[in-house]
């Protein structure tokens, strides 16, 4: 879809996010910690409020009025996620507690061979076994490392690591060399939360499939910034962290190809994930219920639906009244195109200004980056930077960003990270840089 309109002013969208009005120690909040969690638009806050006041009930199997409303809103949100990811079926969308749980689910179910018998009479169960290899990369978040370490240990598989270049990009040659028939699974982050690098997922999936390996894509940081098409990527599993996509906390998404999710054993047991239970024999429900034991986060999922609505509105607003009959999917594609450009603009300007300060080093210089600027300053520890910027109302994150192996690779114990959302401004990027400049002076 090509845009014929002049880009509208993103700053008007700030009014949709009430928290951006916050004043911190006398200064206007500059929220540059979006990679940790995003802020929520009024539309989402209102949907939640409405839910608690007028719709709250447990979903599924309820015959009464509230239960029917809650169920239909809940089911509608699943279809919205299907649209967001361009999944072939809404049955391929599993709601979890978060991106971390989504990854754990896959890592556990692919290595719980013993329970595989319990599935609904499936013949072949995808499974990682002794001697098999799991490939992940140096830039993974702990949530895409530790579950695989635990899984590998459980079955006696080997975890191998794809190296990265100094610029913070996957070493594709090394990746090709590591792939073999032993490789059963590749776990790779779509957008690095520490570097901002956007990885060449489509190509990596193709290479993995050529040796018969499955691919799980950790989309925690891609979800808020890129338009995702799981069918085009041909990813076997794709995970989202919904609180980073302008939706409430406590919701994650696991997308999985239907045949895989059907063949895998169940994860957690409990209400809703069963078909029949007896002490002798329990049979499991069909997708997506099979992987959703217990009462789901009904309000959170409905809030996620509202967040996706907001993004579609954003796409329509961006295009203007010219394309009144855009589908939701088209509107989302437009929205993310615009968001990605806007965030890159902000991050590039922040990087440029920071690099003018002697002693600043930026980690991650891939050409295609999401709005993340990870940096260090020679004379000050990232936590000192964080505390001092906070006193100017500027919220950034300092630390290892749940990427200790990557910090090791970069040779730093921690970094300071400013992460941008479309509602940030050029002025905020400038405030960040001038804050860092003051720290430089103070600590030299």
């Amino acid at each position, binding site marked *: 879809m090509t845009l014929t309109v002049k880009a509208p002013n993103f700053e008007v969208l700030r009014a949709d996010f009430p928290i951006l009005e916050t004043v911190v*120690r*006398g200064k206007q909040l500059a929220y540059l910690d979006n990679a940790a969690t995003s802020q929520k638009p009024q539309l989402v806050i209102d949907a939640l409020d409405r839910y608690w006041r007028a719709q709250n009930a447990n979903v599924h199997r309820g015959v009464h009025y509230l239960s029917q409303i809650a169920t239909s809103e809940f089911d509608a949100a699943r279809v919205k996620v299907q649209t967001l990811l361009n999944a072939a079926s809404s049955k391929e969308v599993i709601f979890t507690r978060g991106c971390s749980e989504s990854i754990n689910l896959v890592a556990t179910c692919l290595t719980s061979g013993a329970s595989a018998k319990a599935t609904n009479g499936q013949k072949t169960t995808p499974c990682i076994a002794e001697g098999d290899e799991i490939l992940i990369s140096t830039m993974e978040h702990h949530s895409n490392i530790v579950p695989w370490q635990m899984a590998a240990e459980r079955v006696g598989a080997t975890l191998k690591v794809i190296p990265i270049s100094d610029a913070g990009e996957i070493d594709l040659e090394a990746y090709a060399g590591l792939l073999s028939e032993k490789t059963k699974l590749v776990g790779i982050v779509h957008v690095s939360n520490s570097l901002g690098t956007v990885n060449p997922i489509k190509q990596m999936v193709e290479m993995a499939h050529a040796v018969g390996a499955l691919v799980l894509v950790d989309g925690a940081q891609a979800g808020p910034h890129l338009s995702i098409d799981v069918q085009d990527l041909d990813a076997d599993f794709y995970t989202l962290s919904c609180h980073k996509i302008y939706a409430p906390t406590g919701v994650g998404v696991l997308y999985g190809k239907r045949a895989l999710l059907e063949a895998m054993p169940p994860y957690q047991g409990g209400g809703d994930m069963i078909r029949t239970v007896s002490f002798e024999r329990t049979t499991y429900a069909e997708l997506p219920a099979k992987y959703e034991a217990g009462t789901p986060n009904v309000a959170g999922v409905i809030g996620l639906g509202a967040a996706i609505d907001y993004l579609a509105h954003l796409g329509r607003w961006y295009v203007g009244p010219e394309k009144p009959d855009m589908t939701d999917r088209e509107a989302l594609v437009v929205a993310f195109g615009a968001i990605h450009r806007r965030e890159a603009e902000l991050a590039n300007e922040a990087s440029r200004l920071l690099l003018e300060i002697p002693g600043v080093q930026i980690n991650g210089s891939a050409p295609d980056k999401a709005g993340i600027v990870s940096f260090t300053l020679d*004379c*000050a*520890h*990232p*936590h*000192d930077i964080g*505390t*001092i910027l906070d*006193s*100017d109302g500027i919220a950034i994150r*300092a*630390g*290892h960003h749940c990427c*200790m192996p990557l*910090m090791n690779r970069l040779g730093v*114990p*921690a970094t300071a990270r400013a992460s941008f959302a479309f509602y940030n401004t050029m002025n905020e990027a400038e405030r960040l840089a001038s804050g860092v400049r*003051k720290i430089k002076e*103070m*600590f030299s």
Partner: protein
Amino acid sequence: MSLDLRELYQEVILDHNKRPRNHGRIEGAARTAEGHNPLCGDNVRVYISTEDGKMTDVRFEGSGCAISTASASLMTEAVKGKSFEEAEAIFKEFQQMVTTTGEAVPHPDLGDLEVFAGVREYPVRIKCATLPWHTFRAALQGEEEAVSTE
């Protein structure tokens, strides 16, 4: 920069951060321990030499922020030459100073260590100031495993 912040990053702290005193290891130290701050991943190692129940030398190594580095540096200065009991008394008062909320009271006994009074306004940074101290005490008690501030 806000006044509050000047309270936290006092000149003495910035100075000890830039030029930490007693920085380095003691080969064959009588006591040593490593401390770890799980909030940030930073580490500190403290070495102690003793003679006749007094600490003749105390040094530290590690990576940390300005608060933890300056705290380690000022701690080594404060406890050198002291007995274990005297050091423990200083620690107690120090800890009380950085963790007590409410009206600030003066702590003249702490000497230079009083520059850390401002830390109490920054709950997430309190562990930075106490990490060296917890590590020091672990070394005194001869703990083997790395201690953490949690």
